[in-house]
């Protein structure tokens, strides 16, 4: 098993765990953390893809590395925005769940997070 395969499998595991957490966890903070785990998995895939360049004698393809830096910046800003919203929500309601959404109608439309 080559290094690229091992990294690829790790990336797949991180993506899978992140997806699971993002979909099933009702707590927004855990969803944010799961999103970061999912993002890390994807960035690891970028690293694996960068090994493509190694065939032609380079240490690695620089383009995915440039992309991954941009990706990390975007994920960081997204996390910051989500945490800021969560803090405002906590200040406004005293709880940090998405349980009761802006109810269009009570009863049939009550939606859990």
């Amino acid at each position, binding site marked *: 098993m080559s290094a690229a395969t091992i990294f690829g499998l790790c990336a797949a595991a991180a993506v899978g765990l992140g997806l699971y957490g993002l979909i099933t966890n009702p707590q927004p903070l855990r969803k944010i953390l799961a999103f970061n785990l999912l993002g890390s998995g994807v960035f690891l*895939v970028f690293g694996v893809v960068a090994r493509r360049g190694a065939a032609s004698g380079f240490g690695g393809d620089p383009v995915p590395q440039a992309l991954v830096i941009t990706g990390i910046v975007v994920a960081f800003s997204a996390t910051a925005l989500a945490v800021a919203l969560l803090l405002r929500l906590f200040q406004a309601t005293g709880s940090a769940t998405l349980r009761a959404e802006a109810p269009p*109608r009570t009863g049939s439309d009550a939606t859990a997070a």
Partner: protein
Amino acid sequence: MIPHSGPVLEAATTGGSLLVLALVVPLVGVLLAFAAGGRQVERIALATMPLGLAIAVAIAVVMGQTRAPLVYLLGAWAPPLGVALRADGLSAVMMAITALVICAIGVFAHADFRTPAGSLEARAPFAFWILLLAIWGALNTVFLAGDLFTLYVALELVTFAAVPLVCLDGRAETLQAALRYLLFALLGSVLYLVGTVLLYGAYGTLDIVLLSRRVHPDAATLVAAALMTVGLLAKTAVFPLHLWLPPAHAGAPAAGSAVLSALVVKASFFIVVRLWFDVMPGLPGFTAAQLLAGLGGAAIAFGSIVALRQERLKLLIAYSTLAQIGYLFLMFPLAFNAGSAQLESGGALTGGLLQTISHATAKAAMFMAAGLIYAGLGHDRITGLGGVARALPLSVLAFAAGGVALVGVPPSGAYLAKELLLQAAGETEQWWWAAVIQAGGIFTAGYLVLVLAHAFAPADEPVTLQVRVPWTREAAALALALCSLVLGLAPWEAYLPASRAAPSGPLVLKAFAAAFWPIVGGAVLAVLLGRWGKRLACAPAGFLVATAGPLRRAADVVGRIIERADGTLRQWPAAGLSLLVLAILFGAAMLPAR
């Protein structure tokens, strides 16, 4: 739409620097406004708007003369080493409409988001104007980006600027709606990013033109295409991935809802079009296109029925957006050419794009009108709208004009779009989509009739307006609605493929013929499914509602079931599972194309 060969796409063209201006001007506005702060923010935003509009018009004019895409190479490095900005006909049209809608929203929002006299800086105006300019810059980036990674960054910028618009008033439920929107949008964009990296790994480039020449159906490409499509669908809020849209669009302030519904969802839709028509026209194949339009058809039926059962006007419009988004996806199977097994940029694509811009203008106008009615009455309960047509005639007229334009009355853009789509359905022998297209028009007429019947009903007591509604705000809404009504007359053949001349002959007769059956059908739907107050009992509508009693009870059962299904689908686990199932389905549907 981007031609797939020819040297012109790898060299900068004259007028290419206009593309840079289109990106830079709104973003410079953001930075200046951020640095200046206070009262300067709205001045800078309002000064940027005519400038941006002029640039969008200039791009359209240059393209109308040269009839060729505009290209700008950043740092004069050609792809795959460098990054290119490209504007084809689709980009030019979308940019012009975006500029128009943003300017109208600027006029409309001027009264809502004014820094109050006596205070140095207020939070809501400061945020609103900066976010509006940021959305504009990000949307222009989406329309001009020449490679998939720039599209990713632009898509994220649109989301980051759109999410705070939802919760500008800081109420708890809008904060929740914003957080929901952000988290689901992030899930969608991560899937898009996975697809991007897989494509880079397979082909060594992300440039749209270079990719379109190299792409071939192997396993990695199929997975990438399925993941990217589903990620973008989640961001566009296609049924059943719409959990974030109704609370976000209904909770935002009126100007914010107009931006979100008219423009923001179109960004990810535009990328789906880029991906399917420009990057990989041969990959999706017949089955995947049917699946995509099937989701659209389900969205039309589902969104419209739930919309008709809403109690509040803004939620009704939000759910109708869901249905209208579904309508946009009907063009994909109609563009499929069975002979070449490819999606072709022809009449169906033109029809879909015309529907996109008609919806952008009309829906912005309808949200603005609803905002004015809300401000005037102090509520937006549909059964309490009686007498509002007398109190706010211009707002109701704007709402009606926007609705009529969307139903597809000549010479509106939606009429031309419907004609082109029906023609494509005839040519490709897919009669079932023709039926869905007609049903879409009838459902649209349904909520128009429902709202207007209430608005024109006499009031119990004379309506007293809570606030004075300035005529400039009503005029902004009305102008956009009228613009949507005459979009069919514009010279689209310079920008869009296989466009047709404007409808000729006696226009009034044609308008009547085109509107008659949808409005009759819509009235029936509204009577069956709508909510009717007791007050209408004496009006003709009230008589109809009373006569249709047993049928209404049956329709009520159907409506309840669909509403309950909506409640279930809008929960996180259900939406997440639908997302994964759809990704697998799209992957499987693309397999036979190999």
